[in-house]
């Protein structure tokens, strides 16, 4: 005899519990945490290196560096005296809340105002997981094409700001800025977009100012 049994169990429940624990730690330590998501090579690490210069000590920040393999990015940041904790996913395509929680506790939290998580390079999976952050930030480089927001709507829908990176390359690309911005607006009409080049330091100040304001208001 067949029988139907109602269960109702949230499949993201365990992840959400860890995310909630992280939020408690962040609240207690008065720390803002942002989750930077973009494809491999979008310029996420370069952006972090430059943020330090533009913050000019107004916020003390540390980094949780998510990678599938190698500690190369963490080493890049450590040479700049940025406190960094490396998360190696060992093949997994995204960071989950439990891993982030323990890595966060490895940072010198009493000495920080801001934690930036550099997620694994991927526009799909990281957008699905709440890791306890105050904001997801999408990073899209101009070499990736104008239509990425339409192809990966969840990330752009979930993000509180969008960074359009590597704009110093625009003279060499058939990239149509207006088409790209229209695609982003189609997914999330009110999201702020920061077009910048970390390499040339162009547009960095506006983005860092937003970060400072967000950090105060969040």
């Amino acid at each position, binding site marked *: *005899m*067949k*029988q*139907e*049994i*109602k*269960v*109702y*169990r*949230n*499949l*993201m*429940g*365990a*992840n959400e519990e860890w995310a909630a624990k992280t939020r408690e730690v962040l609240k207690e330590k008065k720390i803002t945490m942002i989750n930077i998501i973009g494809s491999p090579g979008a310029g996420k690490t370069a952006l972090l290196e430059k943020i330090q210069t533009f913050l000019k000590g107004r916020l003390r920040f540390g980094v949780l560096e998510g990678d599938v393999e190698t500690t190369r990015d963490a080493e890049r940041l450590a040479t700049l005296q940025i406190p960094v904790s490396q998360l190696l996913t060992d093949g*997994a*395509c*995204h960071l*989950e809340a439990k891993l982030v929680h323990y890595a966060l506790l490895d940072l010198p939290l009493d000495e920080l105002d801001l934690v930036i998580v550099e997620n694994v390079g991927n526009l*799909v*999976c990281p*957008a*699905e*997981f709440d890791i306890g952050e105050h904001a997801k930030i999408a990073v899209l480089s101009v070499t990736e094409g104008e239509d990425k*927001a*339409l192809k990966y*709507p*969840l990330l752009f*829908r979930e993000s509180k700001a969008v960074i359009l990176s590597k704009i110093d390359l625009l003279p060499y690309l058939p990239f149509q800025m207006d088409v790209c911005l229209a*695609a982003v*607006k*189609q*997914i*999330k*009409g*009110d999201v702020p977009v920061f077009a910048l080049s970390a390499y040339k330091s162009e547009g960095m100040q506006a983005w860092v100012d937003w970060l400072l304001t967000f950090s105060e208001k969040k």
Partner: protein
Amino acid sequence: MHEFSICQNLVEAILDAIKTMQPRPKRLLSAHVVAGRMRQIVPQFLESAYEALIQDTPAAGSKLNIIEAPIKAKCLVCGQVSEITPPSFACQGCQSQSLDTISGMELYLDHLEVEVENETGN
């Protein structure tokens, strides 16, 4: 490929549910999962992960059924609730893009279909 990670939670939830059922079912026929359309779940990946993870468990041999839930959003300008069809995120009433997404991110095990002993004991 986050489907595998999600599927581990799913199988755990199913096995927990089966354990607490009284009387214990003879076998699990199917598990029904609701996935919001905003979630980028690839059904085939979830099904493959499911088949791999249920082997040698009390859920072995069961089928996975994925029920897609639509994306709905409330307009912050006119208040209308619209069904959203990506890639267009706009109110169907006033075309405003100021929306509060109210559904489409669901991901839960809704129900199980099990085979139980007949009351006559057959």
